[in-house]
Each structure stands twice: as C-alpha cells, then as structure tokens.
C-alpha cells in the first residue's frame, strides 16, 4: 500500500504533520487501567536505507504482546520502503521485521559489514536482532547472536568500543519491571491511577555486547564495567568525550544519576558521571533524563552533551571543559527557561538550514496522561522546540519555523533523515498512541550543501566515530559521527555538510576511527549532492 506521509507545501522551515499520515501505521500503547509504565514511554523510529537504493526508508516500532498486554487485534512494527516520490510502501511482511514483543526502540547498524543495515529492536521483555539478507528480507538472528537482553530494553546504540572494526551493541535497560511488579501510583482515596514516577522501581544495569565478528556476540556487561552500576536508562549516545580515540558512552537515567562511561581501553569503562558533572543537576539532585545527544555544538573540538529531562527540571546542555568534566550551560543559552515546563524525549543536534552551524531540535510530551488536571502549567501534549545556532548562541526559532511548532504532541522517538534527497535533513517523530509525524525540511534548500556517506573498511562499516572537517571559503567546520542519540531511534547514516551561500567546497578531510585511524583529504568536490567515501579509496563516488 502506498501512503503519503507529507504535505508538499513549502511555506515554513518544516511542513507536514499528523493530518498527512491518515493511512500510516499508528502506534498503539494498549493503555490499561493498571497504567503499566511501558505504555506511556514508547516508541521509537528510524530512517534507514534497508535496500541500498540510495533513498531513506522508514521503520516504526509498535507495542505488542507481553505479560501485561494482549492486543485484541495483532500489532506489529512497520518497515516502509521509500517510493522516491514522497510516498512509502509498507513492506514489513515481506521483510519479516514485525517485532515479537512490546516494542520500544530501534537501532540500525551494519554489524557484519556486508553493506546492508541490520535492525535491532528493543522490546519488553526481550529484544530482537534482524539480520539484513540483502534481498529485501531479514532473518531473526537474536538467539544465534545472543543479544536478546532480557528485561525492559529501551534505547540501543551500535558503536565499536574496542576498535576492532566491528560494531558492538550497547542496550539501555530501564527498571526491574513485570506485570507482577507493577505498582499502584495514584489517589488512594479514589483509586484513580496514574503512571508511576520511575523512582518507585528498582534500577537495572545496561547491557554491552561485544561483536565476535562471526555473527555472534558476547555479553561483556560485567567485565567491561558497564554493569557495575545500576540505572534507569532511557537514552544513550556514543562518542569520544576526551579525544583519546576510544568511544565513550553517555546514558540518560530517570530519577537517578546519569552515567558517563569513559572508555579506558582494553575493554574497560569507568563510570565517571559524578566527577564529570553530568550525573546530577548543579544542585546535586538527580533529574529525569530521557533523550540525549552529543555534538561539538560550539566547534571547539570537544564533544558536548545534551539531556532532556522532565518538567520543572529544565534540560541540560553540558559544555565540555576539555578535562573530562562538563559545565551545564542550559540557562546561559536560553535552553533552561524554554524547557522549564517541558518533558523531552527525541532530540538531535543537526544543521537544519545548512548554514554550517549545528542547531537543535527537541521533541516533547509529558509521560503522565493525567498531568493536565494535576499540575498547573504542564500538559500531556507539548510542542516541539527548534533552536537555531547563530554561531554566537542558540536562538529559539520555533515560532517562525512552521505550524507544526504550534501543535502539541505526545512525541517520543525522533529520527533524522533526508527522505527526499534534497539535502535538507527531514524529521520523523514517533508519537505515543498516535500516528507518526513526518516533517519535510524546507529550510536547508535555501543554502548549499554536500552530503557524505562514509563506509568503513578497516574501521567499523558505519564509520561511527569518524570526524569530517571541511572548508568552504571562510567557513571551516567539523562534524563527528556519533553512535545513537535521540530517544529509542536511529538516523540516516549520511552526514550533510552545510555551506551557507558558498558555492564551492575547498577541501574535506575524513579522520577514520580506529583501527583504521587514517586521515584522507579530498578536493574538487561537488556541492548540492550526495557522495560516498570509502575508507582507503582515493576518489569519492
């Protein structure tokens, strides 16, 4: 079935919305009177090119059968093939990627380096790995791979922690939850229930699976130090925060301290969030971390971190002090006051207008669907926020970026991807118990750009951790390819380099992650199109 997800209007920075998605698969949370916490927290979404035709396809996660939910009609995840005309076709049944439990998130990565992206779906009470067969179908290889990760899986990240050239898998785990362990939260007099604050549940450790390079993985959660601490993890992003060539991982936890796992090499991580200043608020209180991202937003050569929290807490923008510590600059940048009453999930730094600066999109929605009646000034449905990076600071441009920013959503997952290949990175938002929202980006077309697909050979196939530096006239910028980021979601693997009005790009340099580790320079580059750079090959394609 062909479906139209977007409007073709070109009037604002972003266009599109729920009204354009009447026939697409709707997320069903299976809300019950018992208010099981997973109901209000999903789901994720992804942009991926599953058939390698050069066009971004879409994957949407849905809930499904488990101990607390038996859907009356079958529910499944959905893979939509891009028809290259603004419409998509549901190919889930043929592809065999329906999911088999209560779906939460998705992480896409070519873990076996065969050139085709594979799909890991986090679920409750166990997750699933779909290997891409390269012919439009997938095979459930969870058991063989050993990555079922029993428990309540949330966000997952593919990254190469030991620099052996194969993508490893980090899986966030939320609390110790089951139908039998569900707690009553609500009004004891009336019996009215609402979704519990996660502090009432016990924390659990996250998972780290080492890729053995033969289609199997080894659970190294304990020996790596990842499981040495227990959290309530929603979001995760992998990046190198101390520029030592090893990928670290930042995890947003809900009602307990966030984790910053610093990779010390030899397969060991130190959890250093407390000393790094990213575990708690400046006032020593844990916040409700949900969505996360990492980017060098101020272009000082060091990765900064972002965490979305729940209302009253403000979101956090942690600027890297270049010594494994960070400073929260949310208030100074205006992020703090803009997010005081919001609860954030999907979020990402990206250059939406292709001017060369990293902007920030935040997707929001309160987890408690009764909050409107209980807390003044806070609503269940919340608007998105868009901050434009002016190179001097972040400016809230939500009000001038399209009608969609005046709508309120129960946004959860959010993925970035250029589905129409026009160089303007578009946005896909998964809403809780509702239709997804696909936004066409109109702003990036006002400027020039170069899209780059990196393919690792010695390095991991997805080039996670690669650094791309480019010069266009007086503009020199650097982009880093992080693993994961946002919430329960996975993104277009291509990097779009914004040039502003500059009509040529002077040079481009790729610093490949280890074990490749080489640096390649390119000149005579085109603009306003996508190119592919393969590690070790002198000429781009």
């Amino acid at each position, binding site marked *: 079935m062909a479906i139209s997800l977007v409007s073709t209007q070109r009037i604002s920075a972003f266009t599109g919305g729920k009204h354009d998605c009447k026939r697409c698969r709707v997320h069903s949370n299976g809300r019950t009177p018992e208010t099981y916490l997973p109901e209000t927290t999903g789901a994720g979404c992804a942009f991926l090119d599953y058939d390698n035709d050069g066009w971004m396809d879409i994957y949407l996660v849905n809930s499904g059968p488990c101990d607390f939910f038996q859907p009356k009609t079958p529910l499944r995840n959905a893979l939509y093939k891009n028809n290259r005309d603004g419409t998509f076709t549901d190919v889930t049944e043929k592809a065999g990627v329906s999911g088999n439990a209560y779906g939460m998130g998705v992480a896409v990565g070519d873990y076996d380096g065969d050139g085709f992206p594979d799909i890991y779906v986090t679920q409750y009470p166990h997750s699933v790995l779909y290997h891409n067969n390269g012919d439009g179908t997938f095979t459930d290889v969870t058991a063989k791979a050993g990555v079922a990760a029993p428990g309540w899986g949330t966000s997952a990240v593919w990254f190469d922690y030991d620099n052996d050239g194969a993508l490893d898998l980090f899986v966030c785990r939320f609390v110790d939850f089951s139908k039998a362990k569900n707690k*009553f939260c609500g009004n*004891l007099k009336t*019996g009215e229930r609402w979704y519990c604050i996660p502090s009432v549940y016990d924390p659990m450790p996250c998972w780290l699976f080492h890729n053995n390079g033969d289609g199997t993985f080894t659970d190294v959660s304990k020996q790596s130090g990842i499981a040495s601490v227990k959290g309530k993890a929603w979001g995760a992003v992998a990046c190198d925060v101390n520029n030592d060539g090893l990928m670290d991982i930042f995890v947003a936890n809900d009602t307990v301290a966030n984790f910053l796992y610093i990779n010390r090499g030899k397969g060991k991580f130190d959890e250093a969030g407390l000393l790094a200043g990213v575990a708690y608020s400046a006032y020593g209180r*844990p916040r409700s971390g949900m969505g996360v991202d990492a980017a060098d937003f101020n272009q000082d050569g060091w990765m900064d971190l972002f965490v979305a929290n729940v209302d009253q807490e403000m979101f956090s923008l942690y600027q890297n002090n270049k010594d494994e510590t960070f400073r929260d600059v949310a208030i100074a940048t205006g992020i703090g006051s803009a997010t005081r009453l919001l609860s954030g999930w999907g979020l990402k730094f990206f250059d939406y207008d292709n001017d060369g600066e990293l902007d920030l999109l935040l997707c929001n929605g309160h987890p408690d669907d009764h909050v409107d009646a209980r807390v003044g000034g806070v609503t269940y449905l919340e608007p998105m926020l868009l901050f434009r990076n002016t190179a001097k600071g972040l400016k809230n441009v939500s009000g001038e970026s399209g009608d969609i920013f005046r709508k309120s959503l129960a946004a959860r997952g959010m993925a970035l991807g250029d589905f129409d290949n026009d160089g303007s990175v578009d946005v896909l938002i998964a809403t809780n118990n509702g239709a997804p929202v696909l936004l066409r980006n109109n702003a990036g077309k006002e400027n020039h750009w170069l899209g780059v697909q990196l393919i690792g050979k010695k390095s991991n196939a997805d080039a996670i951790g690669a650094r791309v530096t480019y010069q266009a006239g007086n503009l020199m910028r650097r982009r880093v390819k992080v693993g994961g980021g946002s919430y329960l979601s996975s993104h277009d693997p291509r990097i779009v380099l914004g040039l502003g009005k500059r009509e040529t790009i002077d040079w481009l340099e790729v610093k490949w992650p280890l074990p490749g580790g080489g640096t390649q320079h390119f000149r005579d580059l085109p603009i306003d199109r996508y190119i592919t750079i393969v590690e070790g090959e002198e000429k781009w394609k």
Partner: protein
Amino acid sequence: MKLKPTLSLFVFCFAIGPASMAQKPTEPSNVNLKAVQQGIALSEQGRCGEALSLLRKFASVGQSNKDVKLRAGLATVRCAMTMDRADVAVDAIRILTRDFPADPDVLYATVHAYSDLSTRASLALVRVAPSSYQARQLNAESLEAQGRWDDAANEYRAILKQDPKLAGMHFRIGRCILSKEETSTTSADAKKEFEAELKIDPNNAGAEYILGELAQHASDWGGAIEHFGRAAKLSPGFAEAQLGLGMALIATNKFDQAVAPLEAYTKIQPGNPAGHYQLMMAYSRTGRKEDAAREAALQRQTAEKLEQEKQRNRGVEPSQPPTP
C-alpha cells in the same frame, strides 16, 4: 488605592507575645472556673463587654477542664475582636495555639483573627498617615502579592520620589522586574535597580546576592564571584550566597578557593544535596579523595531523602490500591 494587607507581616509582629503568657498555668479555684463558664455563656449571648472581664482567667483553667478552656479561649478571641481589643485577642491566640495546636477551631479562629487585625492595622495606617512611605509600601506589597508587578514597582518609584535615599525600594523594584515575564531587557533593568540599591545601602546582602545570580546566569563568573563574595561577607550565615560563591569558583576552576564557602554552606544546610555535591567536586579536584567520597555519600543520602519527601508531597507513594 485599595489596600489588601499582607497577612504574613502581621503574623510576624504578633508572634511575639507578653512574657506573662509563658507562665505555667495553675489550677483555678472553683470560683474562677465558674466565672469562666459564665463568661462563655455571656459571649454566646453577644454580651462581649461583660464576658471579657470574666474570661480573662481562662488561661489558668487546667487539663481536667480542657473543653472549657478551649471554648473559653475561642470566646475570648471572638469577643476581643468584637470589642477591638487586639492585645487580648493575640494573648488568647497564643495560649490556644500552644495548648491546642492541631485543633481545627483554633486554627480557623487564628486565621480570621490575624486577617482581621491585619486589615484593621492597614486601615489605621492609611487613616493616620495616608501619604507616609509606610502606607505606600504596604500598598505596593499588596500589589506584589496580587502579581501586579508594574503597579507595585510604580508605587515603590513614587516612594523614591518622596525620599530618594530610602533603603529597600530599589531592591523591591528589582524584585518586581525579575518577577515579571522575562524579556530581553529583564536582566539589565533589574541589575540597574540592585546596583542603585547598593549605592544607598552598601550592606544589602540580598542585592549583592541577586546581582551574583544575574551574573551567574549570564556566565559572568567573575561578576558572580564578586557579588556572591560580598553577600557572603556581609552576611556569613547567608547560605545561598555561600553556595553561589562556591559554585562560581568551581565554574572558574578555583577549586581550592571554593572549599571554604561550600564548607560554610554545608554547615548551615546539611540536609541540602547541593552543598555536598559542589563540595565533593571541590575536594575531588584538589586531591582530597576521602573527603570527596564522604561528600558524595552525603549528597546521595540527602538527595534520596528529598526525593522521598517529594514523592510523599505529590501523593504518589506506591502502595496498595483501596479495596473495592
């Protein structure tokens, strides 16, 4: 302009009662008890003038006649307010709140009595000194309580026209500016007022503190250190100023200097995780690992305790649902 007095100001004034009220009550004679009961009866008939003279010994009614004592105390408050005898009413409230602190009737009578006293005092102020700065200040405070920030600020400005050197007015104008919805000029406008306040009253630690906060929000760490430092020096017991100073010093990597104000803060506010968290950072970055570990543990304990309190206040403590 209509006056709406602020209750809290008067509560503060009336919280200090005559020392005689603190004396241990003695068991009354039968004669006294009988007189008190007669006073209650007269008060119920609305004969407050006669009732008050009989009720004046109600404080000495003993525990064996608690009900009589409670009723007599309430009658005293009611009649004293009717007869415009604020002193008697306040004395009676002191005894009632001491002996019956959780009694709903006592709490209700207390609210009404203080509210009435507050109204009467403000009306008296307007009557006897309508153009005094005290009357205008009361009016401005009332406007603040209503959230009418611009009106309140204008009233404070009018006071300054009368007396440009009056301390506290610029501070209050600055507070009104900060209370309004934020605009691009909020910080700058407020800053001017607090700076003007300090020219009049260089010892205003509150103005220094808010200037420190404004500097901190603008990431002007030098300014934050300067202002928080002066606030802490002016008032060493000003916990938030010590914390602000410590945080600003940490933000500028002056970890060794941050230790002293943060230690001062944790002594004043041992139950607040903020101080332990920041002090942990300072110790850790100055090589005091054991001290840092201790503070980290205290930070976790205090944060957990506050989280539990927060949950209780929200009424979301997990428990069994009511049985149908």
